[in-house]
């Protein structure tokens, strides 16, 4: 593994998660070094989203440990985890559809008290996604799919997190916008934010990331530097459509 | 752990003091009636402390095994495994001999229980099988009761002649209620069905010319039985009116058994499967070829039909009906029977009907305390067992395994 990065900001050790009787995560072990972009790729239903939800505390790990900056977080409720500095942009544009764009972003900054900082970050988000600025009074539900996706990412950025979890940021977006989003992701990362990314668009994800994990039916089957994975024959066959 | 629990205890105690002391202390004039208020407060605190002790003791025990099924599940499982003859036989025997050993009051309570069991079974079709909330179910009971009363009083129809008409009327009302609710979601259904229930009651109360309004109707004949005798050398039919309570008990017992058989058959039929599919996932059911609109209407109609039967019997038994017998609270009780018993579970409903109607009777002397306890127990039950007493489980079908084995046999 690449040693250029600092300490691991996030470590998962043998994490098992169940949906009632379904064993969704069957012992996930992975690490996210500080300052890196890590991506998790795999087919629909492989357990990628469950992994993110387990990190955020929405789903409970029945077994295993999750360490964030050396602290055990697997028993903490989601709001405490958020307060520690983990933000998530969830899958499927889960924005507050009956609140305005502005209010959605404000909710992102719910835990923050620094008014000026919030204002600055809001400007920053608007500069990343100018279309949101044009629509800041509009209700979230009236935005198009891509705009909702941007809003969800913007909302997570407003949390000023140390670790940003992105669940399928490319979902339903036009290729141009996808490229823009991934550029943005790299830009954010350069500012010092660690990013943990879940993607179906494996190619895009691997080219952006430093480290990649491949997931299949609840298990991590491959892990390597992202560039190495791109060259991996099996990955090419299964996820890059040859 | 203990420290946290004690902190909780203190907070709860403060809450309890705030809630109880003013409400129980200032009951009349401005004087504070300390004795009663503090007595109740003391009981409350004692319960809290007890709860704390239980919690502390429990925390020292090993955590429960997740994989092991819970006790009620195991009981339910075992219930399913016992051959029917051993459970149903004694139950039927007990029901059959009950009027011979019981006094009139007990029989009357038994009759009431059975009426509510019938109602619960009917509502079970709507709520339990089809998954539609209905807060106005008692209206169909009223329709059944009034149809028999009116047909009997005005046109002299016998119980048997009036019954089918009442059932059809009930089913029509069911469809009328069902139709506008087809597109509605759960909570909107609640107010609409509640509204319909009230509308039917108010119509019965206000339509003086037909229903005699609040005076009610009285003097209906009891259900008759006919038996042949040989008189004057010829065969003659004698009409015998069931006036005694044991007679009425057997009568409603037979009705209840028929309804149980009917609901059970429906449950296991193609229609029943479609209903449960609707309850589980309406969109998927529709896209699997189940005409959900028609089946939802059918569920309302069938439920209403069963309630009408119970209503007709009720009117015949009491010989008196009044719109005030069909208040919203009655709908709530029937719904409680269904939910408490375990949604969709027939044995659950029978037991819950028994518990909710007969057990409070035992404590009738306690008057308001009885209702206080009724409410508290209802909430507690839901918290402990949100799935109901005997959760419904789709019966495992053993007969297929035999078939499979037979097929594999020659290989």
């Amino acid at each position: 593994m690449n040693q250029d990065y600092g300490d691991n900001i996030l470590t998962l050790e043998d994490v098992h998660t169940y949906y009632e009787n379904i064993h969704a995560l069957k012992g996930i072990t992975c690490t996210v070094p500080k300052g890196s972009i890590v991506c998790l790729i795999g087919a629909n239903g492989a357990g990628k989203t469950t992994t993110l939800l387990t990190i955020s505390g929405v789903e409970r790990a029945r077994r295993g440990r999750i360490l964030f900056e050396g602290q055990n977080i697997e028993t903490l409720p989601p709001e405490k985890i958020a307060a520690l500095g983990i933000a998530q942009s969830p899958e499927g544009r889960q924005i507050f559809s009956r609140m305005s764009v502005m209010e959605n972003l404000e909710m992102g900054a719910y835990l923050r008290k620094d008014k000026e900082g919030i204002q600055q970050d809001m400007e920053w988000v608007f500069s990343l996604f100018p279309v949101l600025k044009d629509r800041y009074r509009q209700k979230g539900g009236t935005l198009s799919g891509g705009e909702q996706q941007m809003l969800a990412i913007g909302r997570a950025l407003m949390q000023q997190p140390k670790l940003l979890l992105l669940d399928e940021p490319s979902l339903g977006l036009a290729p141009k916008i996808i490229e823009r989003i991934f550029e943005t992701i790299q830009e954010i990362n350069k500012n010092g934010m660690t990013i943990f990314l879940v993607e179906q668009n494996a190619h895009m994800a691997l080219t952006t990331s430093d480290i990649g994990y491949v997931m299949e039916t609840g298990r991590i089957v491959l892990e390597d530097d992202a560039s190495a994975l791109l060259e991996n024959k099996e990955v090419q066959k299964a996820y890059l459509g040859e | 752990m203990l420290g946290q629990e004690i902190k909780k205890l203190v907070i709860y105690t403060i809450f309890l003091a705030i809630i109880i002391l003013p409400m129980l202390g200032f009951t009349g004039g401005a004087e504070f009636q300390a004795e009663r208020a503090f007595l109740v407060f003391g009981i409350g605190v004692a319960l809290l402390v007890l709860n704390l002790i239980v919690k502390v003791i429990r925390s020292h025990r090993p955590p429960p095994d997740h994989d092991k099924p819970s006790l009620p599940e195991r009981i339910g499982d075992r219930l399913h495994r016992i051959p029917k003859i051993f459970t149903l036989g004694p139950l039927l025997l007990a029901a059959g001999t009950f009027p011979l050993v019981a006094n009139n009051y007990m029989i009357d309570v038994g009759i009431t229980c059975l009426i509510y069991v019938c109602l619960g079974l009917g509502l079970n079709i709507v709520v339990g099988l089809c998954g539609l909330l209905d807060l106005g179910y008692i209206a169909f009971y009223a329709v059944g009761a009034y149809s028999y009363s009116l047909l009997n009083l005005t046109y002299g129809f016998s119980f048997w002649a009036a019954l089918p008409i009442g059932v059809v009327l009930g089913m029509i009302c069911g469809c009328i209620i069902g139709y506008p609710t087809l597109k509605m979601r759960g909570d909107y259904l609640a107010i609409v069905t509640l509204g319909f229930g009230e509308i039917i009651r108010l119509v019965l109360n206000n339509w003086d010319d037909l229903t005699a309004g609040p005076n009610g109707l009285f003097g209906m004949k009891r259900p008759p039985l006919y038996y042949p005798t040989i008189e004057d050398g010829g065969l003659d039919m004698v009409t015998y009116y069931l006036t005694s309570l044991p007679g009425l008990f057997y009568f409603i017992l037979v009705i209840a058994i028929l309804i149980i058989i009917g609901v059970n058959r429906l449950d296991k039929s193609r229609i029943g499967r479609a209903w449960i599919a609707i309850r589980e996932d309406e969109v998927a059911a529709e896209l699997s070829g189940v005409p959900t609109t028609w089946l939802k209407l059918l569920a309302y109609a069938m439920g209403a039909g069963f309630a009408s039967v119970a209503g007709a019997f009720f009117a015949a038994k009491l010989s008196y009906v009044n719109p005030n017998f069909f208040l919203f609270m009655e709908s709530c009780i029937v719904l409680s029977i269904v939910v408490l018993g375990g949604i969709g579970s027939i044995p659950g409903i029978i037991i819950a009907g028994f518990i909710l109607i007969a057990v409070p009777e035992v404590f009738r002397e306690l008057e308001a305390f009885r209702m206080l306890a009724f409410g508290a127990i209802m909430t507690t039950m839901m918290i402990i067992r949100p799935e109901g007493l005997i959760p419904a489980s789709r019966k495992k079908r053993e007969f297929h395994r035999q078939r499979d084995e037979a097929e594999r046999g020659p290989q």
Partner: protein
Amino acid sequence: MTEMVLKNVSKRFGGLKAVSDLDMTVPEGRILSLIGPNGAGKTTVFNMVTGVYPPTRGEIHYNGTRLNRLKSSTIVSHGIARTFQNIRLFGSMTVLENVQVGMHCRTKSGPVRALLKTPFERKEEEAITEKTMELLDFFGLADKYNEYASNLPYGDQRLLEIARANASSPKLLLLDEPAAGMNPIETEALMDLILKLRDTGLTIFLVEHDMKLVMGISEQIVVLDHGQKIAEGAPKDIQRNEKVIEAYLGSGAKAEKKAG
């Protein structure tokens, strides 16, 4: 010719244009795949075809019948069945019963027959069970007939959905991402199954992301992007289509191709 024809079909959700002016045909007895990025409107097409909601504009015909305003259950009885992207089984029912529900539109017994348990009803029930077990055998679920659907492993749940859809004796089967969440081995088996189903005379209309499956079994592919058809043709042509690569397969695929 029992083919499905979509003519100029559009669907709007508020301001969002999910599908615009789609023209396509699903020919009989073939395997046709609909692909495109997430949110391109593939599931919307399925939903319109199966009557979940009517198209805003345009016509959908199947076997000469206009489907636009028909109820979903009626469409099923016309011989069109489907599965769902996110599995929608009847969780508290057994495997057997799930499939039996699928047979609803091909059976007749009403409430009165059920109440009286007439000989007709009994015979029909027996026939239903018989046929269900045959189907379950076909799908390899026969030994699990007594399990609750919610207790099945993921792959089996996918299979059960297809079995349920098949129970309505369809002529056209719509599969919405059937391989989602399956590992490569399971996907392989699924491909065989789909081909086997096609060989029984079924028309298969497929939405799928797994390119191996799509390219492996499709006889024809339609590509959607932003609600518009951007390409149509045989798998080979699609793979080479610049527009498709740009919109869906990704510039990475393009790069690879150049490298290759």
